[in-house]
């Protein structure tokens, strides 16, 4: 277990600057998720931590030791790649034991470590097989096994679940989380999938255009996004956001008055409200139902107000049909106001 610290880390590819001074402290045993859209620099940051990319400026420290000029192999990290990167010509056993073999560990120790890892990951029946004889999920587990046997200071995951189908992804998500709870190894996990981030992370760093937009615990990010970008990125279905103007303690938008707190009179704002906070009510803001998507436990409604589409999530079943008028009663406590120009949060 170890801490990881990024201090004003920068990186450019040619003239393009991809990381603009990232500072981030990761605690011992923490599960940190770097999330953001493609091209936000999250993978680059991870690869710099792994020693696969040079560090342009700034410092990266593992357990207090600056590793800028330390080789990958001497950083005591293990990485799981999106493509698994298993050695095709080696059996599962050899794949997992490869790093120990390179370290010239005794065969007895290698066997023991591989056996332990295989047991944790339910890979015991497959140790003699080659990667091509395994399914996607099994390959992913071998890649994790290869990381585990080294007992590294830090685990790095680079979009490890992207190549799996939806069902397997959910299962592996739980497996990785359980693994972390068991081993308590500091973990840095990169993904573009905000659900993965929300479900697995101790803390999330939302990245955008080479900067950390917001850093915090999953629900903190969900409940109090500090920028419009985070508000729209975190949460599924995404937050409803539309333009409005603050007037008399509320926001005028889409031809209606939306309750909100904060903002100065006449300020142009973006009004954000999550779908589950737009439940139908007996009276309120009128909306026309366009599409009804029942999902059993809840129902998603696509509605239109003044030619703007909004998503509404109601618990249980809905008896509204397409073309019907319903009323929405948003509450001020659930509204998020962002400055229209800067995208910064206004609501207290």
């Amino acid at each position, binding site marked *: 277990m170890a801490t990881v610290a990024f201090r004003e880390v920068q990186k450019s590819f040619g003239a393009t600057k991809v990381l603009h001074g990232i500072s981030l402290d990761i605690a011992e045993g923490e599960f940190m998720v770097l999330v953001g859209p493609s091209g936000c620099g999250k993978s680059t940051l991870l690869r710099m931590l792994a020693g*696969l990319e040079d560090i342009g400026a700034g410092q990266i420290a593992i357990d207090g030791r600056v590793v800028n000029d330390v080789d990958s192999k001497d950083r005591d*990290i293990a*990485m799981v790649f999106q*493509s698994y990167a*298993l050695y095709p010509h080696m059996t599962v056993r050899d794949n997992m034991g490869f*790093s120990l073999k*390179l370290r010239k560990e005794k065969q007895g120790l290698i066997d023991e470590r591989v056996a332990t890892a295989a047991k944790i990951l339910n890979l015991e029946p497959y140790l003699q097989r080659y990667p091509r004889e395994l399914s996607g999920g099994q390959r992913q587990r071998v890649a994790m096994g290869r990381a585990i046997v080294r007992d590294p200071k830090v685990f790095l995951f680079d979009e490890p679940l992207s190549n799996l189908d939806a069902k397997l992804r959910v299962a592996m998500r739980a497996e990785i989380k359980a693994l972390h709870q068991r081993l308590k190894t500091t973990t840095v996990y990169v993904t573009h999938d905000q659900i993965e981030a929300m479900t697995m992370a101790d803390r999330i760093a939302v990245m955008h255009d080479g900067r950390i937009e917001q850093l915090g615990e999953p629900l903190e990010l969900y409940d109090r996004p500090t920028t419009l970008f985070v508000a729209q990125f975190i949460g599924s279905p995404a937050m409803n956001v539309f333009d409005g103007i603050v007037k008399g303690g509320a926001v005028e938008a889409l031809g209606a008055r939306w309750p909100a707190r904060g903002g100065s009179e006449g300020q142009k704002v973006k009004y954000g409200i999550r779908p589950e906070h737009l439940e139908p009510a007996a009276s309120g803001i009128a909306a026309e139902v366009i599409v009804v998507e029942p999902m059993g436990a809840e129902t998603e409604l696509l509605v239109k107000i003044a030619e703007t589409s909004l998503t509404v999530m109601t618990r249980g079943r809905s008896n509204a049909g397409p073309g019907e008028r319903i009323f929405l009663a948003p509450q001020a406590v659930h509204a998020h106001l962002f400055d229209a120009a800067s995208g910064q949060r206004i609501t207290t």
Partner: protein
Amino acid sequence: MNKFVREAKLWLIAIPILLWTLLPIYHIFLFSISTKDSAFSGALWPAKPTLHNFVVVFRQEHFYLHHFWEQIWNSLWIAVAVGVLTLAVATCAAFAISRLKVRGGRIVMNAALFTYFIPAAFLAVPMYKAMGTYGLLNSRWSLVLAMVTLASPYAIWVLKQASDKLPWELDEAARIDGATPLQLFRLVYVPLMMPSLVAIGTYALILAWNEYLYAFLLLSHENTIPLAVGLGHFLASDDSPWELLMATALVYALPPAAIYYAFRRYMVGGLTAGAVKA
């Protein structure tokens, strides 16, 4: 019906090509089982087929065949040496250019390929001069070195293209696992490149086995020449023993055919690996 027409068209093309290719080989075979008198009879099958020619060849019972076993050994020695050396040079070069991304690697490769613009026959004289300077003339090494020079650019190019296709993550995974570049080369790169290596090794080996011009130039002693040059000596007299020449040629053609057959699985995939820039 449509399938039948397409099949028929293919056969129409294939049969002439097959005949065209096999006719000279059949000719060799025909001569090699004919007696000296009947060799030029023009018949499609000799009146009295015989294996006597092969006995003469293997027992070295003719003036031109006194060094047969020695010369075939030379051929083998040279071909294997060329195959091994070319592989060593090209594998290391391809690894350095493609995987280690050595600065200037591409320029080196392109410069090497550029040498193919100069016909090998043009290079023969400078090569002869160079070997003379190093005192290698009439040593098997002179031919080995010359052939490695000729085979390497193509070998580097094919292997470089093939190694470009290996997933980059494997190198990164190995680096994180603690592999030095040499360990990466030995434990990951070479095993994964094996099909291409077999193909290129075979290519260089057969190139050297079949070489005549350079062998003729650089080696001149009966004891050092490969059999290809030895075969040429048959034509030195007015009354060449054609039936023996052809029997020897047939024997000479067998090893490459066997090697090609053994590795045919790798040859097609390996030699076209670099054909398309993926």
